[in-house]
């Protein structure tokens, strides 16, 4: 019956209880909404990075990542491709030649990273071919083709079929150059990437750089990013000998771009921090409201003590009242937050004119919200904990009441 009294006590002053419930709802909406936005933004960034830039796992000659020296190639690369492709978790594996180069036209020049790929292999690994906005992706029919980012095309004033001169140091250290024909332009959500990465066929680049048949990088893409660690472990075991002999170095996308990983961790940290700040503010509102409620019911609580209700039961009653407020507010808040997150997860939050600015730091201009089940659950648990902690001060006030004083007030 104590729980029943606590529940009914909530509705003695409907307006006051509804205000607190509304505060809990707004608090949860704020906390979950901001997490949905931040997590969605970072998730998109990570997915874009994996899909278009990094893939899930990469193999290199161990010194290549320290110094992109053209001669640091992977010996006998096909054995790795073959093993990777046999794994059911692997979507595809692609060989690449990666060189730093100078790209120039008659009007301008800029440094770029030139990626030599096998078009059909690369299509299974990265989604750049899906991002082509004019012209075509690389194929075997074209004559010395290059696909460039739209940003780079604008910078170098390139059009389709324009000639792009690429200058690089070949395997002997001699500066060499080659002319490529622009067959396509791509556009991702990362302007910096678009401005600095160009794609050619692996054989064309191999010939130019004097490393025909050799590769610098093997990119492995998975059907599910969550299996990265599992596949990494399996591949590590398969390539144990080559790794031990320092023929290859294998890394996950998290190791290749530790910034992305820290961004995910930071987002989670700030989401919880933001939620906790909201809940601290909420705690003061709950303490204030419950103290008011206790002071108004001083006489009644004194009477309960007089007739034999223990202090423990009075404490429980007040704590339950606060908990019920939080649970009602928490459930409504979670329901509304779920609706908000689902809406923006489906339609996205369009930043319109601010979008181009976001592209410069690698983010999409439309953010699709994402909240994990764990965050919903944690929000609810944190609200409940806040309620329990907030009930302590008003409960102590109630327990300090002397039944005699209360009865004196009565009579």
């Amino acid at each position: 019956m104590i729980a029943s009294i606590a529940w009914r006590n909530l509705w003695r002053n409907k307006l006051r209880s509804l205000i607190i419930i509304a505060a809990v709802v707004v608090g949860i909406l704020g906390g979950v909404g901001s997490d949905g936005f931040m997590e969605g933004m970072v998730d998109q960034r990570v997915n874009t990075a994996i899909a278009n830039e990094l893939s899930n796992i990469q193999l290199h000659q161990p010194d290549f990542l320290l110094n992109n020296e053209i001669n640091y190639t992977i010996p006998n690369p096909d054995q790795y491709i073959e093993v990777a492709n046999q794994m059911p978790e692997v979507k595809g594996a692609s060989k690449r030649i990666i060189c730093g180069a100078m790209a120039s036209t008659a009007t301008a020049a800029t440094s770029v990273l030139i990626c030599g790929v096998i078009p059909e292999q690369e299509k299974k690994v990265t989604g750049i071919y899906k991002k082509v906005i004019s012209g075509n992706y690389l194929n075997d029919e074209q004559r010395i083709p290059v696909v460039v980012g739209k940003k780079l095309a604008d910078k170098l004033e390139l059009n389709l079929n324009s000639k792009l001169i690429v200058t690089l140091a070949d395997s002997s250290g001699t500066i060499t150059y080659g002319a490529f024909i622009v067959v396509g332009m791509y556009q991702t959500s990362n302007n910096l990437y678009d401005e600095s990465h160009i794609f050619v066929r692996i054989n064309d680049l191999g010939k130019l750089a004097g490393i025909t048949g050799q590769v610098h990088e093997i990119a492995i893409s998975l059907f599910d990013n969550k299996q990265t660690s599992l596949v990494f472990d399996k591949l590590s075991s398969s390539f144990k000998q080559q790794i031990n002999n320092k023929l290859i170095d294998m890394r996950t996308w998290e190791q290749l771009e530790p910034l992305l990983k820290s961004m995910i961790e930071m987002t989670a940290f700030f989401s919880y921090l933001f939620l906790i700040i909201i809940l601290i503010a909420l705690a003061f509102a709950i303490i204030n409201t419950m103290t008011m409620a206790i002071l108004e019911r001083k006489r009644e609580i004194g009477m309960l003590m007089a007739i034999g209700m223990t202090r423990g039961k009075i404490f429980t009653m007040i704590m339950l009242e606060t908990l019920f407020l939080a649970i009602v507010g928490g459930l409504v808040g979670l329901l509304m937050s779920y609706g908000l997150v689902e809406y923006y997860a489906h339609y996205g939050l369009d930043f319109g004119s601010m979008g181009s600015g976001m592209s410069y730091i690698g983010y999409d201009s439309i953010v699709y919200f994402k909240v994990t089940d764990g965050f919903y659950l944690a929000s609810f648990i944190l609200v409940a904990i806040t309620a329990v902690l907030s009930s302590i001060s008003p409960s102590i006030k109630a327990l300090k009441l002397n039944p005699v004083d209360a009865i004196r007030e009565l009579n």
Partner: protein
Amino acid sequence: MSIIQINNLHKTYTDTKVPVKAVNGISLSIEEGEFTAIVGPSGSGKTTFLNLMGGLDTPTEGDILIGGKNIKDLNSRQLIDFRLHHIGFVFQSYNLIPVLTAIENVAFIMELQGIPKKERHQIAMELLKKTGLEGKENYRPGELSGGQQQRVSVARALASKPKFILADEPTANLDSASTEDLLNMMAELNKSENMTFIFSTHDKRVMDKARRIVTIDDGKVVSDV
């Protein structure tokens, strides 16, 4: 048989500028089945005396033996339990729990005593019937008249099967008709259940019904008839 034995009871309030001797050496014996009124002018110490008897306040000096047990020896937790099982309270302002119905108010004290739900419901129904509230079981206090609320309060006091009921000015907020009804009902319960009632009052109508009148003034018993 004496259920309350009070020996040389003193209560001095020292939290005021000048110490106030609210109860100043009262000795009294109350037998089972008494219908006793404690009377006296305002400030005479009758409410303090009732609070001491009810274990709501602690005496400065003296002993209160209830059923042979000196309640002075009980700690606060034991005192709460003692009140719950041995003393029934009726307050001037009824003091029912506003969010509970009449039957729930009566049953609540039995829940505190740990009586099973079915049994307490049955007892509460019987008590409401005895106090003339049949049909009002599911009314909340706000939906009942003052007299009816005080009847619920009496039923609640009876529900714990106490040794005696302490009623502090139970008729102070009631009109004549309600006062008459309540007193008749309590007198009837006193007779039929042999329940001991101790009132503090300055209501002449209560005094007329009482079989024993203890008059207190300046914290002392000045007459006992």
